[in-house]
């Protein structure tokens, strides 16, 4: 039986008067707010969900608007993919960490590349000095990929690659590697991040200006639509936007605005929306404010479904589904009392599972200090396995639906996100807004507010501004082998000497012509990497044709 929301609202008023008038039942704070500054009420009732319609706003799992999840049975079918981001040093070292994680029950791979690779240089470039193999594995050519994936069945394991500006080149290497092993590219499953807009906005590993970057992205969309049906052609990422300081609302809004820009670019280049949209995927962070995070994932799904159906006229159900990877929030890890990070990570991971994530990375406790060791990486993986196998939270789909608080927060978040999307449209879309610095300014203001909240004690971080103790530097942290850079350079020199320079030159000229024209760049890239043309050589040619993105630097304040 439905009770009238109005009646309940009235009863609530009476209840408030009875219990809170005249200084009774005082509270810890005057107001309670989420990380996105949404107001949290003392108690929620059906009157907060007035006007909500189950079929329209929630629906059933696996059906429009996908608020409750993209699969009809979610984790009752199979758990999310446990996918730990890993990579350091040389391909050999990373290969053995991959094998170790797979042996320990990890179900997908996720490659971390070093910055040199991410910015499209070879390890022997002057700007690579000191950076080779540091934040990820160093990849210069197909030869390194052969070692990185040695003994790993590419037709059975899905591989996610955090690579953006040169994503098409790494995709080409993966395809060429599979081909060498006799595995058809149609069998490959995985993801390239391939999301340049958030690089300009928050992450910083851009190479080329926006227009040619968008072309590289749509070239990958098109190539994969025709040849790699199981490949996620992009992972539209809010994670780094959030890590740079954005609120949950801004994270979703700026990410979906980027999504709109990519879909529009692909449609403008002549692709049909339902030919590529089913392979778009997303990536979000999981932060500490538990309920807001769960509401965020649910709201994001509902908004994206509406955008795809109403704005782009997509009809394939898969085009409407926001499938996403989640990583627990690196920026919430503390260098102080770092063991406590294990607890933070567990709760953040739980919010991602309750929010219906498709895959998950849990951070290791020592990552505010260094890359994770084998044992800290294992504990992080075990955390996911405990959530999956011991808590029972994966046994019913979208178990928190119907919570007055959660549904209200989901609605409130959605409303705030639409407001930002309208603003970005007004500015001329995500690319233009980034050029104007709109998102960057919003993110920076949130980052500063967050820091001031901590310093002024409005926000407690355990072990940092409260419950702080004497700092004991932890022992046994990860150290990258200092010989990596030289080893990698020697390997590269040897490789370059062993090639036929005329063949390399011919590939580079072919690429130059393709880049200057309009043909899809992925096929000539595959042809080039097959003959061990390096990442730095390919990106070097593209730099010559496309130019480099120059961000405004030297800001005087």
């Amino acid at each position, binding site marked *: 039986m439905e009770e009238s929301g109005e009646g309940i609202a009235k009863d609530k008023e009476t209840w408030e008067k009875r219990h809170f008038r005249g200084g009774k039942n005082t509270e810890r704070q005057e107001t309670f707010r989420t990380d996105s500054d949404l107001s949290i009420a003392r108690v929620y009732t059906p009157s907060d969900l007035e006007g909500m319609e189950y079929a329209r706003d929630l629906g059933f799992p696996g059906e429009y608007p996908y608020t409750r999840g993209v699969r009809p049975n979610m984790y009752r079918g199979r758990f999310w993919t446990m996918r730990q981001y890993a990579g350091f040093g040389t391909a050999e070292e990373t290969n053995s960490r991959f094998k170790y994680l797979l042996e320990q029950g990890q179900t997908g791979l996720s490659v971390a590349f070093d910055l040199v690779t991410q910015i499209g240089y070879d390890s022997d470039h002057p700007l690579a000095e*000191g950076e080779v193999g540091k934040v990820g594995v160093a990849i210069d050519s197909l030869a390194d990929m052969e070692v990185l994936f040695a003994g790993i069945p590419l037709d059975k394991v899905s591989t996610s690659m955090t690579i953006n500006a040169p994503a098409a080149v790494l995709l080409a290497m993966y395809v060429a590697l599979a081909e060498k092993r006799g595995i058809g590219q149609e069998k490959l499953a995985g993801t390239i991040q391939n999301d340049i807009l958030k690089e300009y906005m928050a992450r910083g590993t851009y190479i080329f200006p926006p227009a040619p970057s968008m072309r590289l992205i749509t070239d990958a969309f098109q190539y994969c639509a025709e040849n790699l049906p199981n490949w996620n052609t992009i992972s539209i990422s809010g994670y780094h936007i959030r890590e*740079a300081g954005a609120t949950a609302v801004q994270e979703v809004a700026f990410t979906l605005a980027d999504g709109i820009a990519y879909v529009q670019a692909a449609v403008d280049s002549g692709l049909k929306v339902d030919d590529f949209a089913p392979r778009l995927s997303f990536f979000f962070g999981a932060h500490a404010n538990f309920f807001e995070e769960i509401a965020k994932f649910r709201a994001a799904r509902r908004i994206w479904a509406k955008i795809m159906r109403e704005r782009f006229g997509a009809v394939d159900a898969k085009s409407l589904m926001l499938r996403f990877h989640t990583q627990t929030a690196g920026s919430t890890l503390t260098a*102080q009392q770092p063991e406590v990070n294990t607890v933070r990570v567990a709760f953040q991971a739980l919010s991602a599972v309750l929010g219906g994530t498709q895959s998950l990375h849990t951070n290791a406790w020592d990552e505010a200090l260094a890359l994770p060791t084998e044992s800290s990486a294992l504990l992080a993986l075990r955390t996911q396995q405990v959530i999956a196998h011991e808590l029972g939270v994966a046994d019913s789909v979208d178990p928190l639906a119907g919570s007055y608080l959660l549904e209200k927060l989901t609605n409130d978040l959605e409303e705030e996100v639409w407001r930002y999307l309208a603003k970005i449209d007004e500015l001329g879309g995500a690319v233009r807004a980034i050029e104007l610095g709109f998102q960057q300014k919003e993110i920076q203001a949130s980052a*500063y507010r967050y820091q001031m909240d*901590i310093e002024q004690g409005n926000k407690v971080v355990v072990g940092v501004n409260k419950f702080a103790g004497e700092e004991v530097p932890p022992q046994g942290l990860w150290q990258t082998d200092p010989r990596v850079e030289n080893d990698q350079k020697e390997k590269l020199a040897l490789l370059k000497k062993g090639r036929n320079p005329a063949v390399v030159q011919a590939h580079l000229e072919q690429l130059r012509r393709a880049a200057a024209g309009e043909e899809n760049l992925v096929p000539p890239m595959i042809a080039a990497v097959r003959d061990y043309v390096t990442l730095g050589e390919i990106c070097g040619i593209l730099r010559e044709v496309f130019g480099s993105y120059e*961000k405004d630097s*030297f*800001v*005087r304040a």
Partner: protein
Amino acid sequence: MENQRRIRVLVGKVGLDGHDRGAKVIAQALRDAGMEVIYTGLRQTPAQIVEAALQEDVQVIGISILSGAHNHLLPKITELLAAEGAEDIPVIAGGVIPYEDRTFLEKSGVRRIFSPGTATTEIVRFVRELARQG
């Protein structure tokens, strides 16, 4: 009159690292504390940092680095400063820098390494102190 001049600080990102949240928060905090702040933007070489510091006549250089390349890049900055006869400009740094590396960096002339979680007020205080000494 000299001590009434606003303190001038260069906040820099060196190497290929793209994490600029910390650098921007620190830059804003120093500015809110009344200092004049020049933020270099991303991907500066040590030579570009030193050149900017000299050109802008700053009293303190603050480097943010989360890429693990600190042991290579920070000593380069102090070396280049010394080569320019500007070793009196103090260099401080923050980011993801393991405790084990601090002694080495301090020996190479970096005045102080701040760990994640340091309050901006503490950094403001330290920069003021450095500027006063200089």
